[in-house]
Structure formats: C-alpha cells, structure tokens
C-alpha cells in the first residue's frame, strides 16, 4: 500500500456539486514533518480539498488516508480534529464574543465531552500552555480582549494560535495572510516556519511573495487536479501554470 509511511495521502479523489466537478482525480502526498504550499487560481478546488481532508465534504470516489492507515472519509470533522488535523479557515474564524484567552482555552487539547466541560476547572498546566501560545502569537498583552476587537491580522494569528493549542500533527492553513500588511505577512511566514519544525503544514495561498518566503515545495491545482508540483521556481516556469494564471 502506497499510503504507508505518509502523513496524508490522497489518491484519485473526485467530488462534484450538482454536476460541477470541484475536485477531479486529485492525488497528493504529504510526508510527516513536511510543509507544502498549494497554489492555484480561484475555483481550482483548494478549499474543497481542505473540506475533504477535514471531513466536511465526502468525496464521491478516491482514497484519503491519514498516517497511512486512517481512512478519513469514514470520520467526521470532530473526530478528524481529534486525530490531529487542525484547520484554519480562509476568513478568520474566531469566537468573537469570547476573550482571546478563552478562545485558546477552548482550543486546548484535552477531553471534549460535555460533562467534563461542565465541571472543568482550569489547571496550572493549561494556564502555562496558554501563556506560551499567547507569546508565540504575540497576543499576550491582549489576553482579556474580546476577539471581536482584534484587528484582522491579529485574528488570523489568534486562529493559528488556536490550531497550536490543539496540538495537531497536521495543520491546514487557508490563505493565512489575506488582508495583512507586508510586515505582518513576513511575521506570519516566520511563525509558520517555526511551527513547521515540529509538525506538518499544508498552506493554501495566493500571495506569491509569501509562498516564496516559505520556501517549500509547491503544488499547483487547476480545475480540481494537480497541474504541477515541485519547487516554486520549477512550478512558476511550467508553461501550463503560466497559461492558467494568465488566462487564455
């Protein structure tokens, strides 16, 4: 079985919505510890791919394996999250009426059952973890702020922080720098590289500067399947990729 020894393994995955093929025979392999950037024009199927990995969308055909043996198509979002796959949305999605600290507290790995939540008391250990993450995402001064009052970039970071709190094996990050200033973008790239030291990361991004800064292997998607794969320079010199991006 080819999926063995990989962290994430997609093979021959297809899904269509009302006749529209969003993903078409897509295959993609991610090794443990690898960071990968996925690029592609609008409608290439990037977000749908993430939906499939995280269990939000069921593929019509194809295999999706995690850690070589877990069939992700048989699990729902919550189970997949607990298996160790974290996801950041395209639009920053944090709990706006909670404080920054509570946002992280909710994300912190730990028991997820309703009864344990009802009688949960925060331990010193957890407080320490939250402090660490707050520093990592540079929000330690804003721990009592309502998340709603953060700037757009800060929300993106908070969301990344929540992923970290989840302690996943694999992070799926959808357009983390959309709407960020240049300085913030650079900071984010730094942050992601730091994270990638300990876990695998799949980044979907439009911003080529950012992808360049990440300096990782790039996969280009088009119309639901892989168009090219390799280093950024290799991919950006591919004739078909240029065609797709410039339009025809």
């Amino acid at each position, binding site marked *: 079985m080819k999926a063995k020894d990989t962290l994430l393994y997609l093979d021959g995955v297809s899904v269509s919505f009302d006749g529209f093929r969003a993903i078409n025979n897509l295959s993609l392999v991610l090794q443990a510890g690898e960071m990968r950037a996925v690029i592609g024009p609008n409608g290439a199927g990037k977000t749908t791919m993430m939906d499939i990995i*995280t269990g*939000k969308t069921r593929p019509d055909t194809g295999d999706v394996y995690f850690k070589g043996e877990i069939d992700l198509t048989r699990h*729902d*979002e*919550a*189970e997949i*999250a*607990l298996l160790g796959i*974290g*996801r950041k*949305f395209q639009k920053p*999605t*944090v*709990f*706006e*009426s*909670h404080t920054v600290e*509570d946002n992280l*507290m*909710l*994300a912190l790995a730990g028991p*997820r*059952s*309703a009864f344990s*939540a*009802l*009688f*949960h008391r925060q331990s010193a250990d957890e407080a320490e973890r939250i402090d660490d993450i707050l520093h990592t995402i540079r929000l330690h*001064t*804003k*721990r*009592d*702020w*309502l*998340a*709603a*009052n953060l700037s757009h970039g800060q929300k993106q970071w908070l969301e990344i922080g*929540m992923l970290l709190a*989840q302690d996943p094996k694999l992070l799926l990050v959808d357009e983390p720098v959309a709407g960020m200033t240049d300085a913030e973008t650079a900071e984010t790239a730094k942050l992601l590289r730091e994270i990638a030291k300990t876990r695998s990361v799949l980044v979907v991004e439009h911003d080529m500067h950012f992808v360049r800064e990440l300096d990782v292997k790039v996969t280009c998607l088009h119309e639901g399947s892989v168009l090219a794969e390799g280093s950024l320079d290799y991919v950006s010199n591919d004739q078909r990729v240029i065609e797709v991006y410039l339009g025809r």
Partner: protein
Amino acid sequence: MITQWFFTHVDRRGAIVIALLVALACLVPLSNLLLPPTSALHVPTYLVSLIGKYLTYALLAVALDLVWGFCGILSLGHGAFFALGGYAMGMYLMRQIGPRGVYADPVLPDFMVFLNWKELPWFWHGFNHFWFAALMVVLVPGILAFGFGWLAFRSRVTGVYLSIITQALTYALLLAFFRNDMGFGGNNGLTDFKDILGFNIQADSTRSMLFAATALFLALAVFVTSFIVRSKLGKVLVGVRDAESRMRFLGYRVDRYKLFVWTVSAMMAGIAGALYVPQVGIINPSEFEPANSIEAVIWVAVGGRGTIIGPILGAVLVNFGKTYFTAAFPEIWLFALGALFILVTLFLPKGILGLYGTWETKRKDRIARKRSEPGSPATERATPIAEPQAAE
C-alpha cells in the same frame, strides 16, 4: 464555603436576581396570608396567582434563552415542552380529584366517563403518585427533546430549518392533543382540579405556596443557567452559536453539546409548565399553539437574549403589558403590543437589558484595553459584543 462555591458560578447580577426571587418567595406569601386586606402592603390573591403565572413564563423564557441566547438554536416550539410538563402535572391533579368528579367515578376522570370509556388508558397509570408525575414533568419533555434533538443535531439541521421543524413539532402535537381519542381531554383539556398534595388548590395558602415554589424554581433555574453558562461548557455553547464549524474543527462533538443543552432546556420548560397548570387551573391543547412559542421567543428578545435576566424581564414585562392592555384598551390592544415588538426591534436590538449590557461590556472592555496598552486610545471600530450570528 458554600457561598464561595455559589459565587464562582454566578455573577453579581445573577446573585441579585436569585436573592430577589428568594425574597419574593418569602415575602409575597407572608403579605398575602398574614396582612389584613386593608393593609397597603397586602398582596391580593389575584396578584399572587397573576405574578405566579408571569414567573412560570419567565422560567420558560430562561429555558428558551439557554438554547437560543447561548447556543443559537432558535426553537419555535418550546411551548410544546412547556405544555407537556403541564399535561403531566394536569394528569396528576386530575387523578387527585378521585370520586369528587361530577360522575363520582373513583378512578376515571370526568371526560372519560363522559366519552364512555371503561378503563384508564395505560399512560394514565402512575399519575396518582406525585413523585411519578413530578418525574414525568421532566422526563416526558426531556425524552421528546432528546429524541428530536438526537435526530436533528446529528443530521445538522440548523437555522431556520430547525426553527420550522420545531414549529411543525408543536403544531403536530397541537393537532394530536385536540383529538379526543388521544385520551387527554381533547379541546377542553384538563380542568376542575381540586387539590395538590392534599391541599385545596383554591385556598389562598396553596396559591401562595405555589407562588413561592415558582419563585424558588426560577431562582434555581437562574442558578443552573449561570452555572452552565459560566462553565467551559457554556463557552463551548457560545462558540457553537458564533462559529459552529470552527468548534467542530477544534474537535468538539457539537451535536452532543447541543443535545445536552437542548434537553436541559426542555426539562426546564416542562417544570415551568408544571408550575403553570395548578396556578391557572387548566391545561388544554392551545398551549401547543405555535403562536405561544413565538411569543416566548419575543419575551426573550424583548428582555435581551444571551443574558440571564433579560428573559425574566421580558416575560414579565410583555405579559404585564398584555394583562394591562387587554383590560384598558380591549378593542385596540393588539396595536399597542404589535407596536411594542416593532419598536423594541428597531430601537433596542439587544432588548431592554442589552442597553445596560452594552454600557457595561464597553466599560469592561475599555478597562481591559487600557490596562494592556497604556496610552492607546480605545478604538471605536468594533461593537463590543459581537453580533451573535443569527440562526442562518
């Protein structure tokens, strides 16, 4: 020790309300029973049962707010749980009548004699015991809510779809309970109660005690709601309300959380109904009317959803308004009530309590920000409380 435990789970406002309710539970009966009617402080029995009724509505509103305000599940069928609780209590009261019914049948309630039934239907057994009825008051709505919620939340029925099927649920129950063959007294429902736990249900003292029980149960509900809301579970619920899919991608089984709070809420509604029935003296299928459930939603909205006191305030105010308007302007009171709803929506989008809440959260938030970034001006950009994402 206990007080400390209490205050870790209830905020200052909640504590004040609980204290107030407990005081009400003591003082109103005392005033009604001990003071002479001429005294200025005497609360007439009429007001005791009236306010008692308002408080049962308030309990229903608190239950509804627990799911809607804190978890974003808009139920347009909570009246069904209220009515089921009421029917469970009504069946107990019916059995208490015993041979004092007009046909003097020792077992069968009047309406069964009158429809020529020969024996008690199976589901009426056990209701001659108070403890059994009390159990049913929470179990019947609880089990229905559990079954319904288990199906709906697992299938991820959300938003208006959920709201409309809750409405369909209460409507179906309305039609079912209207049927005489169901064995619940049909359109006339259950009425003509004689006594509860051996006390004459019409006696002033019984009324006062029922009032006290209602106030205490409401206080308990406020405490339980506070406890839930202030726990991590409560934060998960608010998270579900604001960004359900995020919660799921964090690994929470959202359906189970919803199911938990939904069932708890239905049980609270059932208790409200059970307290309501002996005080108004009748339970009939019109309690299942979808309009009643919508009205309960309106109480919550008027008072302020997502707060614990708001629903109480809303339920009491709207119903007080209804009592007052229907007597003062019987011909045109619907104009007044309708206008109230429109104006509250337009000018007090977070309900009456939202006003205070807005000020306070703003203040707290400003303090927090001042503390964290000395010198930086508080930005006016965002609303302090995020607009809860609507059911959509």
